[in-house]
């Protein structure tokens, strides 16, 4: 009896094993070329992206160059606690989120609208010229951009000051002294700089919309505006949704350089973000603390990750498009 049961069990196992390896073989055979193509990219990924990833343990250690990564002392969550309990944590976190979310809200729809508008232009030369001009600001370095902002909005010698005085005859009020303006300046200058650049992908997608659809709609009597709503917009929706998900994954990462250059003593309360705070703590004391900055980076990444998973799941439910 026992002998039979064992044999039966072994037989079942071998059948299951066989069918798995069969299945794998069948799959590989069917699409072997696809897997071959993936090989080189995967190799790159493993070496250059996943290899260094284990260095993340620095965040949980008291890193000292003498002992290297593995030899340094393990301190668990000490670095994270230090960050979360630091005097300015709440303010800094609030500012970071405020800037990110505001940016996302504003700078997400604008490139789409811009692409749709440009797509409507009938004169081909004008259209091409517009596309090209609109994307140039992207190449202006941050340093120059912030310099220009200061220049233009200067109430004494800037364009803003000159126009204001010319129109009202009075001395212009200094916008930059109002700390709340930091947020708006930061976000809208970003829009100015990047809307053309960000619209490129949408313009590309729009160019693949077949003319037949437009012709058919025209015959049906739809106005140009209606055509935008019903043909153009849906055609770029998958791209838009994908980009939205991706951007949500960067919420915690407000870049350092632009904020730092735009800070001044009057707007510090609103302009200190995580990246500038870490810079001041780290560099201000010299002999930088890599554990601390890695921990904060990890903290940011985890939040970004949770966000991207959430948004992706929502998107899967609502639309057909999702990252995975």
């Amino acid at each position, binding site marked *: 009896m026992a002998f039979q049961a064992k044999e039966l069990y072994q037989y079942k196992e071998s059948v299951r094993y066989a069918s798995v390896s069969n299945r794998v073989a069948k*799959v590989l055979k069917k*699409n072997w*070329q*696809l897997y071959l*193509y*993936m090989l*080189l*990219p*995967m190799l*790159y*990924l493993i*070496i*250059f*992206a*996943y*290899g*260094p*990833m284990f*260095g*993340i343990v*620095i965040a949980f250690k008291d890193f000292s160059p003498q002992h290297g990564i593995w030899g340094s002392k393990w301190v668990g969550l000490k670095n994270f606690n230090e960050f979360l309990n630091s005097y300015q944590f709440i303010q800094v976190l609030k500012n970071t989120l405020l800037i990110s979310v505001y940016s996302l809200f504003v700078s997400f729809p604008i490139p789409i609208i811009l692409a749709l508008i440009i797509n*409507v*232009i009938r004169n081909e030369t*004008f259209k*091409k010229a*517009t*596309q*090209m*001009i*609109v994307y*140039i*600001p992207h*190449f*202006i*370095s941050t340093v*120059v951009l912030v310099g220009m902002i200061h220049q233009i909005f200067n109430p004494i010698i800037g364009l803003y000051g000159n126009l204001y005085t010319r129109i009202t005859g009075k001395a212009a009020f200094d916008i930059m002294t109002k700390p709340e303006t930091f947020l708006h300046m930061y976000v809208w200058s970003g829009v*100015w700089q990047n809307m053309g650049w960000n619209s*490129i992908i949408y313009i*590309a*997608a729009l*160019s*693949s919309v*077949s*003319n*037949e659809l437009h012709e058919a709609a025209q015959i049906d009597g739809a*106005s*140009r*505006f209606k055509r935008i709503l019903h043909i153009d917009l849906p055609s770029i929706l998958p*791209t838009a949704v*994908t*980009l939205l998900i*991706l951007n949500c994954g960067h919420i915690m990462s407000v870049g350092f350089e632009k904020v730092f*250059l735009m800070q001044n003593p009057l707007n510090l309360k609103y302009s200190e973000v995580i990246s500038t705070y870490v810079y001041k703590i780290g560099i201000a004391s010299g002999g930088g603390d*890599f554990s601390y900055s*890695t921990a904060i980076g*990890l903290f940011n990444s985890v939040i970004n*990750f949770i966000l*991207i998973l959430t948004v992706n799941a929502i998107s899967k439910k609502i639309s057909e*498009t999702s990252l*995975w």
Partner: protein
Amino acid sequence: MKEDRLFYCIVDVIVCLILIIILYPLIFIVSSSFSSTEAVISGRVLLFPVDFSLEGYKAVFKTNDVLIGYRNSLFYTVVGTFINVSMTMMAAYPLSRKDMEGRNLLMMIFAFTMIFNGGMIPTYMLIRSLKMLNTPWALLIPGAISVYNLIITRTYIQTSIPGELLEASKIDGCSDSKYLLKIVLPLSKPVIAVITLYYAIGHWNAYFNAFLYITNEKLFPLQLVLRNILLANQIDGSMVTDPELLRVKQGLADLLRYSLIVVSSVPVLIIYPFIQKHFVKGVMIGSIKG
């Protein structure tokens, strides 16, 4: 249609407004680059060049580093972009095939690296162990695939190339490779154009990898040289050790600032018309009918 005419009018007006807003600062930059440094510093330049002078440009080309940087950046951009686009297409195509087993999993594996990375130190150590420090490879290989661009490409292929084409080609006995080469690639011209542009600009503007891995001045890319000159005293003046030097750096930065911007942006502007050609409507028509 009458409402259409009104609509087109509104659109034209909006576009003109946008153009003015974008163009003004750009014209300001170009004008400043052709004005004398004096005029720029004293704030006299508002729209058109004041005290026309080429001193900024002359200084740019006299600076040896700038020329070397320019040459290096051209090299990194061309070779690097080629590597980027090939690798990205190699990964995007299989991932776009709905019938590929495990594609969602693989996609997640890629996307994970977009959010989590080991940081500067482990990456530096990796490059060092691979003996890539101070070689052009350090600027060409790390970052070969941008997951962001990968996702864009994959999405494009998925949505813009209908599944029927694949079925039709299978019936005709077409292999995966052939399908890729003869059908997918030609139809993906718009998105290939886009990622070529993205990668090329990425290379052209890159300085961080060079900062991390390169100390041989003959390999410096343009942006690194640029930042060296322009960032003279923008960040943290409290570590002032030599104020005379500071003033001198400021002077050099003032002189070169705008002409450097113009000179380093020119190649990028030249690229765009070539890319634009591929954003052409009606690419799909022939394939469906055929």
